[in-house]
C-alpha cells in the first residue's frame, strides 16, 4: 500500500462520508423493492428468466433482497467513522455495480439508477473517505 501524505484534519468535505451513508441506505431500500418485486410480482420485469445473463428472476430477487439488507447495514455503520466500514462500503458498492450490470436488462432504468448511486458511493468513500477518520 502506498504511503499517502494525506492531511488528516477534518475538512468541510467530511460530509461526503455521511452522504455515502445515506446513499447506501437509500440504495438498500431500492434493492429491497427490486428484490420483493422479483419475488412477488415478476410480471413487472420486462424480460422473462430466459433473457437474463444468468440465474432466473426468483434467484435475482433473493440476491437483491439480501444485498439490500447488507447494504443498509453497511450504510449505517459508515456513521461510526470506522475505516473498515468504508472499506466494506467500497467493496459492496463495487460488487453491487457489477451485479446490476448483469441484471440491467430486466428493468434498465432501475439498474442504471442503482449503478449511478454505486459510483457516487465509491466516489465519496475513496476520494473523501480519509477525512472522516476518528481519533483511534
Amino acid at each position: 500500500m502506498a504511503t499517502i501524505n494525506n492531511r488528516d484534519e477534518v475538512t468541510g468535505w467530511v460530509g461526503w462520508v455521511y452522504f455515502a451513508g445515506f446513499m447506501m441506505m437509500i440504495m438498500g431500500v431500492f434493492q429491497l423493492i427490486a428484490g420483493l418485486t422479483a419475488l412477488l410480482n415478476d410480471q413487472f420485469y420486462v424480460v422473462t428468466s430466459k433473457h437474463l445473463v444468468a440465474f432466473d428472476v426468483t434467484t435475482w430477487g433473493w440476491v437483491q433482497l439480501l444485498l439490500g439488507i447488507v447494504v443498509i447495514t453497511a450504510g449505517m455503520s459508515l456513521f461510526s467513522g470506522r475505516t473498515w466500514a468504508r472499506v466494506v462500503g467500497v467493496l459492496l458498492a463495487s460488487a453491487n455495480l457489477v451485479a446490476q450490470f448483469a441484471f440491467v436488462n430486466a428493468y434498465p432504468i432501475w439498474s442504471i439508477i442503482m449503478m449511478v448511486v454505486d459510483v457516487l458511493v465509491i466516489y465519496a468513500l475513496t476520494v473523501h473517505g480519509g477525512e472522516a477518520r476518528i481519533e483511534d
Partner: protein
Amino acid sequence: MAQTKTPTGWVGWVYFAGTILLVLGGVQIIAGLVGIFKSDFYAVTNAGLIVFDFTTWGWASLVVGVLAMLTGLGIWAGATWARLVGIFLAVLAMLENFAFLNAYPLWSLIGVVLSGLIIYALTMHGDEVIE
C-alpha cells in the same frame, strides 16, 4: 511541467480509479463470457457486427476484463506502472465498447462511462500519491 506534486485532499482519486477499474474488469468479464457462451443474448447476430464475431469479441472483452481487474489491484497496492497501464486499458476498453456497441448498447454505454471515469481520475489526479 515543473510543478511540485503536493498531495491534495483529492489524493483518493487514485483509489477511486482502482475501484472503478475493478468494476470495469468485472463487467467486461461478464460481457465476455456472455459473448463466448451465450451470444444469443445479444441483440444482433454476427452479421450485425462491424468486425469479428461474438467469440472473438468475447475473448477480447474477457482478456481486457482480467487485465483491468489485475491493474485495479495494482493501483490499490500503490504501483506506479498500474496507473499508466490503467489509462491504457481504459482507452482500449472504451474503443472496444464503441466498436461493439450495437450488440448491446446499454452495456457498451456503461463500459464507456466507466472507462471515462478511470481516464479522468488517473490523468487528472494520478500523480498525487507518494510512493
